[in-house]
C-alpha cells in the first residue's frame, strides 16, 4: 500500500466531511445546540432546583456531563450515517471505489469526520453549559479519552447503519427506535442507583451507561460503574465495530454489485 497516497486521500475525505457539516451548519450544529440548551434550562435550572442532589452533586452539575455525552453520541452517529448514506445514495461512493483509496482509508476518513462533528457539537454544548453552571474537570485524560472513544464508537455505528440502509427511512429508524431510548435510559438524566434492583441490573446491559458514567467520572469524579469496565466496553465496541465495518467494506457486497 502506498502510504503517501493513502494519507493524502484520508486528509481529503476529512476535509470534505468537515466542509460538509460546516456548510450546512444550520442543520448540523445549531439544532443540537438549541435542544441541549433547552435541556439545561428545563432539567437543570427549572426542575433541577427541585430535584436537589443526584449522585452527591447538584442536579445541574450531574446532568451536564450526560448531556454533553448525548450531543457527542447523536452527532457523531448522525454525521456518518447521513453523509455516508448520501454518498452511497448518489452513487458518489464510486469516486472512492474507482480511486486508489484503500477501504481502510475510506472508513478512517468518514469516522474522523464523525468524530470531529461530535467534538464540535460537544464543544458548543460545553460552552453553553458554562452559562448555567461551573464546570471543573476532575481528570482531563479520562474526560478526553472517554469522549474520543465514544465519538469513535458511534461514528462506527453510524457507518454500519449507512452500509445496511437502503432508504432514507432506514437511516432514521435506528436513531429513533434504538439510539434515543438507549441514550435516555443510559444514565444521562439519573443515577442508576435510583432504579429498583432489577432495572438497575438491566441498565448494565446498555453500553451507553458505561460511556456516560466514564465521562462523568472524568469531570465529577463519580460514576455508577467502574472505570475499568467502561474502558473495556469502549475498546470492545471500537475494535468489534471497526472489524465488522472493514469486513463489510472489503467484502463489498453492499457497495459493489
Amino acid at each position: 500500500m502506498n502510504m503517501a497516497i493513502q494519507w493524502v486521500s484520508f486528509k481529503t475525505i476529512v476535509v470534505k466531511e468537515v466542509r460538509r457539516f460546516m456548510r450546512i451548519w444550520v442543520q448540523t450544529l445549531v439544532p443540537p445546540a438549541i435542544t441541549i440548551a433547552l435541556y439545561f434550562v428545563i432539567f437543570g435550572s427549572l426542575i433541577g432546583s427541585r430535584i436537589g442532589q443526584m449522585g452527591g452533586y447538584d442536579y445541574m452539575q450531574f446532568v451536564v456531563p450526560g448531556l454533553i455525552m448525548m450531543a457527542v453520541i447523536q452527532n457523531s452517529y448522525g454525521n456518518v450515517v447521513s453523509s455516508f448514506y448520501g454518498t452511497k445514495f448518489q452513487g458518489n461512493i464510486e469516486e472512492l471505489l474507482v480511486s486508489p483509496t484503500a477501504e481502510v482509508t475510506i472508513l478512517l476518513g468518514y469516522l474522523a469526520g464523525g468524530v470531529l462533528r461530535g467534538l464540535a457539537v460537544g464543544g458548543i454544548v460545553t460552552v453553553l453549559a458554562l452559562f448555567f453552571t461551573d464546570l471543573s474537570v476532575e481528570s482531563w485524560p479520562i474526560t478526553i479519552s472517554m469522549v474520543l472513544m465514544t465519538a469513535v464508537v458511534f461514528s462506527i455505528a453510524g457507518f454500519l447503519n449507512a452500509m445496511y440502509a437502503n432508504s432514507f427511512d432506514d437511516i432514521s429508524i435506528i436513531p429513533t427506535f434504538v439510539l434515543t431510548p438507549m441514550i435516555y435510559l443510559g444514565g444521562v438524566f439519573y443515577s442508576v442507583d435510583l432504579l429498583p434492583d432489577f432495572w438497575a441490573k438491566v441498565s448494565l446491559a446498555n453500553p451507553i451507561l458505561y460511556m456516560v458514567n466514564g465521562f462523568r467520572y472524568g469531570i465529577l469524579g463519580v460514576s455508577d460503574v467502574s472505570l475499568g469496565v467502561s474502558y473495556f466496553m469502549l475498546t470492545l465496541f471500537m475494535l468489534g465495530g471497526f472489524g465488522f465495518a472493514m469486513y463489510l467494506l472489503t467484502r463489498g457486497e453492499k457497495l459493489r454489485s
Partner: protein
Amino acid sequence: MSVALEIKGLKKTYADGFQALKGIDLHVRQGDFFALLGPNGAGKSTTLGILTSVVSKSAGSVCIMGHDIDQDFQQAKQCLGVVPQEFNFNQFEKVFDILVTQGGYYGLSRALAKQRAEKYLRKLDLWDKRDTISRTLSGGMKRRLMIARALVHEPQLLVLDEPTAGVDIELRRSMWEFLTEVNDEGTTIILTTHYLEEAESLCRNIAIIDEGQIIENTSMKSLLRKLTREIFIFDTRNALQAPLELPGFTARIMDDNMLEVEIEVGKEQSLNKLFTLFDGAGIEVTSMRNKSNRLEEMFVNLLKPGNIVGYDKPAEDPMVVPNAAASSGAAS
C-alpha cells in the same frame, strides 16, 4: 507496443442469477482509441464496471497497464480515469471542489489538485462554472464535468461509458474533438457506445459485444472493408411498373417513383450494371441515396446472422442501431 488493457475470460453473474458476461477477452494496445460497441443491455457497462472495480467479477482477470486489478489494485487504479454512464458526482458540491477532492483521492497535493482542476475545467469550458453547485449544471455540462474529473490525475487509460448519450450534436462533436486531442497526447481511450457514427469517426479498433459475448474484435478499417452489401434508394422521373426487369438484383418498388435495390459487391454486381439495366427498362433516375448507415446494416447482420429484418424498418435516428433505438432514451 505495450498493452493498456488485457481482459481474459471475464464472466459476471449478478446477484439475481443473471449472467451479464459470458467470458470476454479483450486486448487494447497503448495509445489506442478503442470502441466497445453494442446495443443496450449487451454488457458494456458491466465490463467497464469490473475494470473500474465498481462491479465485482465472477471469473477471469483484468490487467491495466500491466497491473492486475486484484494484486496491484492501487497501481492499476492510479493509471485509470473513469467517466461513468450515470452522473455520480456530489450534487451539492461546487464544480471546482469536486475536481480538487478527486485529485486528493489519487494522492495529489492540494496545490497540484487545484492547478489540475483549473487546467481541465478550462479545457472543458467549465471554468466559468467553477463555483456553481453541480446539481444546477445542464446535462451537457455535467457530462463535461465528469470528463474533467476523470482527467485530474492524468491517467494513462481513460474509459468512458456512453459519454455522448443524451448530448446534442454540437456538443457531441466538440467532445469528440477533445477526446481525439487527449488521445493524440498519448492517453489510451476506451469508450462504449451504441452510436455507430461515434465509433466510426473516433476509433481505430473496435469490439462488438452482444448478450455478454464479444462477437467481433478487429480494426475499424477491416470492419468497414467487410461491408459488401448496400441498399440504395432511387427516385425516378417516370412511374414504375411491376414487374421490373433487373436480372441479378433484388429490387423492390416502394411507390410509383421510388425504387429500392440491394447491391452486393461480392456477386459481381455494380452500379454501372444497374444503370445499364435501368436504361434498358426505360427508367430515368433523378436522384439516389444510401438507405442507411453501412455500419448499421452490418451491425444488424452480425447480431442476427442470416436475418436482415433491420432493413425494413430503419431506425428513426440513423445513428442508432435498431435494437438500441427503442430504449436509447433511457441511456442517459
